[in-house]
């Protein structure tokens, strides 16, 4: 039986791992490569790596702590893929087919596309034809407005005017293979997923939906599986707080008879 995935999302800003709150405040959490090695060791199901830098400056600023300077987001991806043998989705600043190809060659399996899908919807068609739908993840940031739920672009700054369901269905027709569905209002709040939103999209779409935004305790994962049809649950901040977080999350779900991969610290 296919398992539901538990997926840590790593946010990178200027070369550092950060945690995010409502898409605006970012706190430095340290070295991104070390963090990924940790997650791999605990048999995380997959990884999503998002570059949320607003410019192209990747610096260390903490060379004093003995970390090696990795000059670019792509350099970080390359370093990670040499040591981590699990599926990796990479997002941020992807604007053309060449950007996708570069990331795949460095070891990414999938790319997530957000803003460019609005700027040029045909890009999604071209990308899924060139690399296969399985490779193209739509990242979708949703915020509540006075006129209902709306999809936002450009790091959650600009209201596109599209309703989440309209956009998800349209992009599915254009060929996306998965949707990473994130709630801006819940980002970093720890008060649980936007269940209504997840439910709406996961009932209507054929492709797998990855829930994101708002997890503050393991029970929130359970709630998503109980109340919606999402295929996978993702979270960022909560996986960075404790040492064996992914293992603990999966153990919790496994022990409660949820359909996740057995939380072994694998060694065969």
């Amino acid at each position, binding site marked *: 039986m296919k*398992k539901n*995935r538990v997926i840590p999302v790593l946010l990178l800003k200027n070369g550092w791992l950060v945690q995010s709150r409502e898409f605006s405040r970012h706190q430095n959490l340290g070295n991104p490569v070390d963090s990924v090695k940790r997650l791999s060791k605990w048999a995380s199901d997959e990884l999503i790596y998002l570059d949320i830098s607003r410019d192209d400056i990747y610096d260390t600023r903490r060379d004093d702590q003995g970390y090696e300077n990795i000059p670019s987001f792509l350099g970080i991806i390359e370093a990670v893929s040499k040591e981590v*043998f*699990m599926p990796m989705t990479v997002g941020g600043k992807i604007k053309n087919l060449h950007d996708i190809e570069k990331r795949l060659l460095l070891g990414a*399996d999938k790319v997530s596309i957000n803003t460019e899908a609005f700027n040029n919807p045909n890009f999604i068609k071209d990308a899924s034809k060139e690399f296969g739908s*399985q490779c193209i993840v739509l990242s979708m940031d949703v915020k509540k407005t006075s006129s209902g739920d709306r999809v936002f672009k450009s790091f959650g700054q600009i209201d596109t005017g599209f309703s989440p369901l309209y956009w998800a269905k349209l992009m599915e027709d254009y060929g996306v293979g998965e949707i990473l569905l994130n709630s801006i209002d819940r980002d970093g709040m720890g008060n649980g997923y936007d269940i209504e939103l997840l439910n709406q999209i996961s009932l209507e*779409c054929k*492709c797998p939906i990855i829930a994101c935004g708002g997890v503050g305790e393991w029970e929130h994962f359970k709630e998503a599986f109980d109340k919606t049809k999402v295929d996978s649950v993702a979270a960022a901040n909560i996986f960075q707080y404790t040492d064996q977080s992914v293992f603990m999350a999966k153990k919790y779900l496994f022990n409660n008879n949820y359909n996740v991969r057995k939380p072994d610290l694998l060694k065969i």
Partner: protein
Amino acid sequence: MSQIEKVCILDYGSGNVGSIFNLLKYLEINSVVSNKKKDIQNSSHLILPGVGSFESAMKKITQNLPIEYIENEVVSKGKPFLGICIGMQVLAEYGLEFGKNNGLGWIKGSVIEIESGNQPLPHIGWNNVDFIQKPKLVSGLDKVNDFYFVNSYCFKLEENNNLIGETTYHEKFASIIGKDNILGVQFHPEKSQAAGQKLITNFLEYK
């Protein structure tokens, strides 16, 4: 004289050769990414990776690989061969993704869309394999048999004795196939953590 194990990862322009190369390096297995006859000849094992569609993979394979030479090495001379994902699917006689396209035809069967019922497609994520046969490719994998899949199509075998393992996603499909030295896996061992690493190590046991 026994040959030192060396893997040739067949390079036909498939995007994901890097992941397999990285894994073999991590496992300290000597490997080369190449489409040259000399490298293929000097290797003890061949791996055909793949992502994307059947159609585009076959197009690139016929354009970029010395396929008659490889066929002679694998089918006639018995060099161990492992096809991964699309690299397994192209072993079929034909595939039906984006129209009917011929495959290599080394294992009898065709590639058809998965019947997923009301389950999402593509089939993405970790799923387990039930072993129908237990050749050395799957030794030691009884307890940890979840692998990472990404596929919308699957291999429909014509001969049951080529079925090594199957996976259920609404319906059952062949996830590990084999005919002597010619092996194929639908999932991605290079992304399947410890279980994938074990399977690759097992593959090197074929001589």
